[in-house]
């Protein structure tokens, strides 16, 4: 958004709550202790949140509980564990630790209401968004397959050729062929060739730990420096917005924030754009209640925070007989879209996708093998290390999540942050339909692994028994009807005409496992165009 506006010579003040990262100093991939830390969080680079009542586990799906063959069953209470909202507060946001997946929505998954009476329809179709996907792909430098995608029309080829599958992923690819499934090169915001002054990937498998080489197209390496370079964008890191003040005439008057030195500041602008993600954005809007908006800002429909969609996710890992050195790879280098359509899974509404995920699963180096793969202690453990190191392959599955009345974000009635603002409370619930989809995802993941030549399943992680989400959606959804949505088709508040929201909270449906970052970027570029064309907004 900042890039799209500033490149149109519109002045932008970008307030980022978290710190800036220097890949060369802050990331650890060239250090001996690289594996001791996942993503190197800095002070104030994680938001605070709490959870509402977690659901009792449905024992019919107990086969899908999280376990590791060294650690055993990880969650034993019979109640779904609270887990983690995986995100980064910082310049570049969660793209700092994402796998680089650059996906377009499946057009079929944008009409869930009219087709299945589930979720909501997007207020426009895929064709409307397609040109903006092309722009975003150019900025990021997406590497993708050369073959046509039957599900997603594209007007331009990917900027870069696809990555070759890693040796480990090639085993998964071959195994899938035996099942009649088709794994293709994933479209990744990871450079397969030099591009825009950045070097190509060297396949270290460390995408989720922060890309030290800068080949991953995280926002801090792509859109933000380009925005600042226009001379029209000012970036202020470490500035926590504490409230948005509404004024008369249905317009936003100002934004309050605490700057990096702890001083309270207030700033006004012609347009205010909120991009804090599907948990923090509703929190900020709900916390910004006042005389003009007693139930929270933009909440005339009562929909702010509702329709929360989380990540329906499973990752299954197994030991292969062959020496693979499977830690050598770009994250999620191959993907299977065969079950991505919302009607692709028998008796289930909502699709899913499968991807190679050995790096994402964290089987990236000796330490993880020592803790999660080799059993026992003493000489036996060392021998197992020698026999198994590099032999794990993992398959991840992400599926559609359908909104339900028990999944929503609200303000914690008791807990507040350092500024005295209530923190977000995550209320999460998996319906039977979600669990049936998850069952298909996990059973198929196992079949893929076995068909790929892997033997024993050594680890299974699923959102059945633990909330674990990076992809979160829906809490300020777009729609044509102001009675059941928060924003119009241009991500503009139905009431507050100078207030926009651009993040995945605007998604009316989650899609069938597509990673959302490219769609967020495309939506931002489209919305910026609308703002530029409607300067009287």
């Amino acid at each position, binding site marked *: 958004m900042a890039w799209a506006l500033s490149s149109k010579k519109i002045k932008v003040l970008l307030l980022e709550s978290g710190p800036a990262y220097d890949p060369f100093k802050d990331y650890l991939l060239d250090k001996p202790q690289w594996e001791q830390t996942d993503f190197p969080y800095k002070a104030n680079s994680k938001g605070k949140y709490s959870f509402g009542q977690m659901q009792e586990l449905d024992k019919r799906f107990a086969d899908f509980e999280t376990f590791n063959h060294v650690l055993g069953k990880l969650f034993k209470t019979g109640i779904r564990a609270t887990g983690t909202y*995986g995100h980064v507060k910082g310049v570049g946001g969660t793209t700092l630790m*994402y796998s680089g997946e650059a996906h377009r929505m499946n057009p079929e998954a944008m009409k869930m209401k009219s087709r299945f009476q589930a979720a909501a329809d997007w207020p426009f179709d895929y064709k409307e968004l397609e040109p903006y996907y092309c722009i975003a792909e150019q900025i990021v430098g997406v590497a993708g397959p050369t073959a046509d995608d039957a599900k997603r029309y594209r007007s331009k080829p990917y900027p870069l050729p696809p990555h070759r599958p890693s040796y480990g992923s090639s085993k998964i690819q071959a195994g899938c062929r035996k099942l009649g499934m088709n794994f293709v090169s994933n479209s990744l915001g990871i450079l397969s060739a030099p591009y825009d002054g950045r070097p190509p990937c*060297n396949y270290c498998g*460390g995408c989720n730990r922060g890309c030290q080489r800068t080949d991953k197209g995280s926002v801090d390496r792509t859109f933000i420096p380009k925005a600042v370079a226009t001379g029209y964008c000012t970036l202020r890191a470490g500035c926590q917005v504490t409230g948005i003040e509404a004024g008369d005439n249905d317009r936003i008057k100002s934004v309050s924030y605490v700057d990096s030195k702890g001083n309270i500041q207030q700033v006004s602008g012609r347009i205010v754009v909120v991009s804090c993600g599907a948990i923090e954005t509703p929190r900020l809007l709900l916390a910004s209640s006042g005389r003009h908006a007693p139930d929270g800002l933009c909440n005339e429909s009562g929909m702010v925070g509702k329709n929360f969609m989380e990540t329906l996710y499973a990752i299954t890992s197994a030991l292969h007989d062959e020496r693979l050195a499977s830690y050598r790879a770009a994250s999620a280098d191959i993907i299977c879209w065969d079950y991505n359509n919302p009607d692709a899974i028998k008796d289930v509404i909502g699709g899913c996708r499968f991807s190679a995920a050995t790096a994402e699963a*964290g089987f990236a180096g000796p*330490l993880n093998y020592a803790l999660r793969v080799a059993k026992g202690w003493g000489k036996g453990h060392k021998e197992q290390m020698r026999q198994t190191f590099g032999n794990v392959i993992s398959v991840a599955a992400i599926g559609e999540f359908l909104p339900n009345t028990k999944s929503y974000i609200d303000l914690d009635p008791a807990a507040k942050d350092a500024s005295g603002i209530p923190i977000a409370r995550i209320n999460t619930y998996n319906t039977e339909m979600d669990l049936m989809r998850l069952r298909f995802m996990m059973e198929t993941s196992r079949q893929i692994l076995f068909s790929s030549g892997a033997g024993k399943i050594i680890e299974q*992680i699923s959102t059945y028994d*633990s909330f674990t989400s990076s992809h979160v959606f829906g809490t300020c959804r777009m729609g044509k009807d102001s009675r059941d949505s928060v924003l119009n088709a241009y991500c503009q508040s139905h009431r507050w005409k100078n207030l926009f929201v651009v993040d995945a909270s605007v998604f009316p449906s989650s899609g069938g496992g597509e990673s959302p970052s490219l769609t967020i970027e495309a939506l931002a570029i489209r919305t910026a165009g609308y703002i530029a064309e409607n300067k009287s907004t």
Partner: protein
Amino acid sequence: MTVVSAIRTSSIYNGGRAIFSRRVFLRIVAGAGVCGLSLILAGKTVLHNDPAAENNQTIKDFLDILIPEDGSPSASQLGIDKIVIDEINRNKDLLELTGKFFVWLEAASKKAFGTGRFSRLNDSQRQQIVAEAAESAEGTVPRTFFYVILRGAFYHYYANPLSWKYLSYNGPPQPVGFPDQAEPPRLS
């Protein structure tokens, strides 16, 4: 998408959370201050002639049973004992757990081999005692200590590049990466 945080490699000493809940851990260490053998890793209590050295030696010997030399270095050969002892001394919960474990260790060694000093046992005897700790009932002091220290030892040992060459691992991942990723591995 990143992997579930339930199986993290970090925070190994944070109450042993990867294996034991914080609640279980605290229940185990509660009351450790009244146990018979006070912790002397920092040399605070006189039990033997040189108590700090005696207990540090016990930790070192315990770690070398967990990670022995077998052509590749033992834990202490990579200095893991010093790191672990330092972490025990800096973590009150772990310090108390270690105190309780030493009580158990002394009793178990005495019962099995007639001496309370683990360091005076031979390698086979030490292995027997360590196995007893590992196989103790879930939630007990010896089992908790065993797994917390085991994971802590692995956490540091396998972050040392000197342990990697025995696995044909050419890390760390950067700056070279693995440009041969599409090919079968060339194993040394």
